[in-house]
């Protein structure tokens, strides 16, 4: 296989993985495939796919400005590939956004509901319009394939210059507005990146990035198709990049110094390290490299320099897009592998489309030729494997389909089933206590384990038959049910009755008529009472009023003991307090004797400051 075929196979593998992850994302929601949290609602998909994606697609507006506005005719060979990359880049941004948006089918709402205050509204509109402009700019290229489209093509060619002009205007707006998005977060973004001139910095860096992306495209495609690089043009772009990067550096550093943040660069925090790496990648090393004419003209110098700027700017967009907010939000976000796969897959899809267009349309002066495009070639004999391979075109299609389907299946096998099935519920931290049959279970995940008597729970729930209550009938893929599965919310009574368990042969194995009367409608309140069977669960003469099929909550139980009795007694004896209001028993500060008792222990949240009757509750005078 040659370079192109290997690259395409890898791209198809990634696309296959993405398809599987993508289906999961839309079927089970964002939580199933991402590590996003309420504190970090924007992750890799915004930071890379959108923020960096738009910036990476800036090559078109830079090169069209150079070619059409500044009339530098020598750059003509770079224009068509740059416009194509930008168009595919913007389509990739939109596809990436469709994965990230919670309600992607509402994306068109931006067209009808307008909010002029929102930078995102402006970015959205510009991206929509600019993608259309890019499509119109590029469409003459595929249209020239057939002569029957000549009229449309000629019509579009007439509007070439105005389209380019509008494209540059729109690009200026949204490249800078991507920076404006973060102006509203002065409290979250780390000061080294937050700046009131963020839009200006974003625009200048996008211009530099555009120059370097055009260079990199030329380098990569000439590597893949073994063409001659437009080396003299790339050298010119590198020279221009020195000035733009220099301007970026001067403006950014003077802003940092003017706002008194210079000391932060050397403060030794991990953000300061990020900043130094970023500035070295985007500005310092590339300028140093490109300043030497010999390096600037050498292939290696062009590769290293442009790659550094591109990666560095991507890094910058990710830093602004959320990485440097983690200190303030206190979150520990790192993208899950499924997020990374989707990101790579969107890029791979765009790259495949790019390669397709390069081979099918007249983008370079000479269309690349490689075995795949030769449909009439004979099958050939592979000496190493001793088999006849089909015609190259057929063999390639078989290989790519196989790569796609196989990786699709593999991705499904490795998808995080736990996250999907249990809806992101945290595992119950459990460890064995020393000796006996006692476990430490941290049921509410507050870092404090409570002793869990396993044998007691077993005895209460019916010995060996009870295992399934916690270990098999629980949420799928969870090892054991958390405490909350039975001990529900402190303040709400829980419906502990499991109908399916009672009816199933693996459970209580009851027939319908054993609980429901045969000639009555089968409903909860026409069925038998719980205590008819579970006699041991109900204390005779209990003060707690038990509703049918509903287990009382902690509060109900506790209050039932005091309040119900008091209510009853209050009717008989007028001097008893009726405890109708919480404040009768609860005080915000516990009395002294209770404070002594809870000293040294972690105070339980809600019961420790109950003032017992007789201590401070004033009895009503008869």
């Amino acid at each position, binding site marked *: 296989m040659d370079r192109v075929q290997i690259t395409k196979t890898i791209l198809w593998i990634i696309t296959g993985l993405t398809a599987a992850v993508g289906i999961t994302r839309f*079927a089970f929601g964002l939580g199933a495939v991402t590590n996003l949290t309420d504190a970090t609602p924007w992750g890799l998909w915004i930071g890379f796919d959108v923020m960096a994606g738009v910036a990476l697609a800036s090559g078109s507006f830079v090169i069209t400005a150079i070619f059409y506005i500044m*009339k530098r005719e020598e750059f003509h060979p770079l224009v068509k590939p740059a416009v194509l990359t930008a168009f595919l880049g913007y389509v990739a941004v939109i596809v990436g956004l469709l994965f990230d948006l919670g309600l992607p089918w*509402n994306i068109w709402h931006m067209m009808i509901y307008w909010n002029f205050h929102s930078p995102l509204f402006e970015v959205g509109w510009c991206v929509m319009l600019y993608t259309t402009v890019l499509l119109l700019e590029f469409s003459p290229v595929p249209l020239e394939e057939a002569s029957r489209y000549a009229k449309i093509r000629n019509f579009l060619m007439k509007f070439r210059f105005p389209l380019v002009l509008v494209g540059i205007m729109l690009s200026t*707006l949204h490249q800078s507005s991507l920076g404006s998005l973060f102006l*509203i977060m002065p409290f979250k973004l780390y000061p080294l990146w937050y700046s009131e001139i963020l839009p200006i910095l974003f625009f200048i860096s996008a211009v530099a990035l555009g120059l370097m992306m055009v260079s990199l495209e030329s380098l990569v495609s000439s590597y893949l198709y073994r063409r001659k690089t437009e080396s003299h043009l790339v050298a010119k772009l590198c020279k221009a990049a020195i000035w733009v990067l220099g301007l970026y550096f001067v403006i950014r550093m003077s802003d940092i110094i003017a706002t008194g943040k210079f000391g932060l660069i050397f403060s030794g925090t991990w953000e300061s390290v990020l900043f130094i790496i970023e500035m070295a990648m985007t500005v310092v090393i590339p300028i140093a490299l490109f300043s030497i004419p010999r390096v600037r003209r050498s292939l290696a110098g062009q590769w290293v320099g442009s790659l550094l700027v591109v990666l560095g700017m991507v890094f910058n967009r990710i830093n602004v897009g959320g990485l440097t907010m983690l200190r303030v939000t206190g979150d520990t976000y790192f993208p899950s592998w499924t997020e990374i796969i989707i990101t790579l897959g969107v890029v791979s899809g765009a790259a495949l489309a790019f390669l397709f267009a390069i081979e099918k349309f007249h983008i370079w002066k000479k269309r690349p030729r490689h075995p795949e495009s030769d449909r009439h070639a004979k099958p050939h004999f592979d000496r190493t494997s001793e088999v006849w391979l089909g015609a190259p075109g057929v063999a390639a299609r078989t290989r790519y389909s196989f790569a796609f389907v196989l990786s699709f299946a593999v991705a499904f096998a490795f998808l995080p089933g736990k996250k999907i099935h249990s809806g992101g519920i945290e595992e119950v931290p459990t460890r064995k206590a020393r000796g006996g049959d006692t476990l430490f279970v941290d049921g509410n995940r507050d870092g404090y384990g409570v002793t869990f008597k396993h044998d007691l729970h077993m005895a209460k729930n019916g010995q060996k038959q009870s295992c399934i209550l916690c270990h098999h009938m629980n949420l799928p893929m969870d090892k054991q049910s958390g405490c909350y599965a039975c001990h529900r919310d402190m303040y709400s009574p829980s419906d502990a009755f499991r109908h399916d368990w009672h009816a199933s042969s693996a459970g209580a194995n009851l027939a319908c008529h054993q609980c429901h009367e045969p000639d009555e409608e089968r409903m909860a309140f026409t069925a038998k009472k719980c205590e008819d069977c579970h006699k041991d669960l109900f204390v005779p003469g209990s003060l707690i009023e038990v509703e049918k099929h509903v287990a009382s909550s902690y509060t109900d139980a506790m209050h039932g003991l005091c309040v119900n009795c008091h209510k009853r007694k209050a009717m008989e004896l007028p001097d008893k307090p009726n405890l109708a*209001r919480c*404040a009768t028993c609860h005080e915000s500060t516990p009395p002294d004797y209770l404070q002594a008792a809870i000293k040294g222990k972690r105070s339980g949240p809600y019961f420790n*400051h109950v003032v017992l009757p007789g201590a401070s509750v004033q009895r009503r005078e008869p």
Partner: protein
Amino acid sequence: MSVKAILTDVTKCLGCLECVVACKATYSLKMDLPKTWQKNDGLSANNWTSILQKPGNHYIRKQCRHCLEPACVSACPVGALSKTPEGPVIYDNDKCLGCRYCMMACPYGIPRYDWDKPVPYVRKCIMCYDRIKEGKPPACTQACPVGATIFGDRDELLAEAHRRIRQNPGKYLNKVYGEHEVGGTSVLYISDIDLGFLSYQPNLGELALPQTTSTAMKSVPYTFVGVGAFMLGLNWIIKRRMKLQDQEVEKEK
């Protein structure tokens, strides 16, 4: 219509969670299982208000602050979030496209997301807007057994807060939280401990956050026209220069 507000007196709160229960009952919110994406402040898509416990038996109710100039409303690209004249910041399910910019913009980190649903929405306290329109107080303030959190006109509650601080010297910190923060909020606190932990930074300052982007947003049309004019001018100059050069070349011939 006068702006309504909620005043929470931290020193009075018992932490009994009646407000949380009332909120959950009013909006039929589901039971909250511990999820991997929750922050540890008790708020979630199913918990629109929560009680934070701080050492020394301090209970602080956390909820949406209903800023007078909300960052989330200015951030939303489709106007799914809106500030009503009565004070509440409300959310429209049907407009939202799920970009979560509101969650990024909020300085208090309030809006929450249905991460586990294929059709997710943003969820946060809406100050019982429907009840307010009917002239009823929000469910949480009605449920509070000790009057730690009360509802009323913002001006009156501010006066009440200052009155309580004046009348009990030493009991409260001399600050009404939410009076001027980020341009003022409709949920006010008076407290005996510093409530800086309710927001991402202890001191948010008095600048309303929408103003940080408004300069950039106002310059958008000018930038658009300016860039176009600049590019056309540049093109004209370069074209003319090339023309003159060509003429010179021809003359020399």
